[in-house]
């Protein structure tokens, strides 16, 4: 094992240890306060409104291949889909999920079927759709769905490139709320300009914790925060050492 592999293994080990420690500590604490992210507060209102007003929620899971690094954001999208499906599947117009990749499409159906089964309601497989398999065909398929299904709010959580601009434009035209986060830098820039509630960087991965998917989501958020500060510290120290060395 080379030193880089060892470093990676140690990093994963520390992350895991921090997650477990945070989970244990959080179990003993009550009234947990998370930093306010306006996008999630607005989304929770939109979920409530969707159930009351009978409008539909649309969760777009993007095109992340589950065998690549894009799988991370795909799993976050699926967790959020599961949470929303549990809250809104009993409404007249249950949520609809779109994806641009085969495995994500299957898992989106499975997640919704699971939620429907727990609530004792019927599940229609059309609620987990694959709208296209290339970036632009996926966007084209999704934007027509936003118009046809009378969507009240769109959650775009997944791997998107700049083509996500077409989806946000369709949402804007149908006067529905858009919340979006992605792991792709160009996609993030487009979402910052075009989505009503953009999520930047790690905010997207915090969705599960803010929507109450499970205690482990909050624990992992704590672990992420701690490690982020450690990394920031190491970068600053490294920059200072380099600066001093060049003097």
């Amino acid at each position, binding site marked *: *094992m080379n030193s880089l592999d*060892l470093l990676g*293994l140690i990093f*994963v080990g520390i*992350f*895991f240890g921090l*997650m477990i420690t945070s989970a244990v500590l959080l179990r003993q604490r009550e009234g947990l306060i998370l930093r306010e992210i306006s996008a999630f507060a607005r989304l929770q209102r939109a979920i409530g409104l969707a159930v009351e007003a009978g409008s539909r929620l649309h969760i777009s899971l993007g095109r992340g*291949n*589950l*065998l690549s*690094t894009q*799988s*991370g954001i795909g*799993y976050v999208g*699926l*967790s959020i889909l599961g949470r929303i499906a549990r809250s809104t599947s009993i409404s007249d117009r249950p949520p609809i999920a779109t994806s641009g*990749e*085969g*495995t994500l*499409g*299957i*898992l989106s159906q*499975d997640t919704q*079927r*699971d939620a429907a089964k727990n609530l004792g309601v019927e599940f229609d497989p*059309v609620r*987990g*759709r*694959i709208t296209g*398999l*290339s970036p*632009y065909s996926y*966007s084209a398929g999704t934007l*027509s769905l936003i118009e*046809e299904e009378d969507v009240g709010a769109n959650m775009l959580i997944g791997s998107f490139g700049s*083509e996500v*601009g*077409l989806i946000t*434009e369709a949402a804007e035209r149908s006067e529905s709320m858009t919340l979006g986060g992605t792991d792709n*830098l160009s996609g*993030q820039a*487009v979402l910052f*300009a*075009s989505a*009503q509630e953009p999520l*930047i*960087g*790690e*905010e*997207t*991965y915090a969705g*599960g914790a803010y929507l109450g998917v*499970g205690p*482990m989501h909050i624990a*992992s*958020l704590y672990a*992420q925060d701690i*490690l*982020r500060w450690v*990394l920031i510290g190491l970068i600053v120290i490294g920059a200072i050492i380099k600066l001093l060395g060049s003097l």
Partner: protein
Amino acid sequence: MRNLAYTAIAIAVGLVVLVGYFLQIELLVNLRLVLLEWATLLVAVALLVGVINLLSVHWRKSTSDNSNRVNSIALIVAMVVTLGVAGFFGPTHPYSLWIFNYIQIPIEGSLMAILAVVLIYAGVRLLRRKPNLLSIVFIATAVVILLMTGPLFGIDIPGLAELRIWIGKVPAVAGARGILLGVSLGIVAAGLRILIGADRPYGGN
């Protein structure tokens, strides 16, 4: 009981792949490669399922009283013709390439052109929706980069080229690095949650 079995399989496979990546033990490395090959096969099958899903959704729409049923019929016809041509002649045959070069690429190119207009409109809307410093910096940066990326009628504004290079090398790289660090930590967290069975996208949550 079934959910427990799914979780056990997911955790065991995840652990083998993760440990096999870091520790170069022959048995683990070989097992990891076999599992990844199986996963690749499953992804290919899932792609096929995706195509069938797409076809079934549009079949249902085209046979219903939907106002956009013409689009669904066009999709089904295009899919059947493309599958037929590429399946019969092969994907590199001139007929298949003709479909790709003269239908698929122009359509995607048109969407890309629409996207350019949509993004300009989104930029203007951003200033109206969130008129704050961050939005102004975002738009100003985009304008500077755009101005200096294309030819500006042969006009050379002193300092703009240097400004573009500086933006590309310093603040853009710093910002991208910060975002990517956050994204990487998020990916590790998502992976570990699945590895310990806290997240079960395969059902049984």
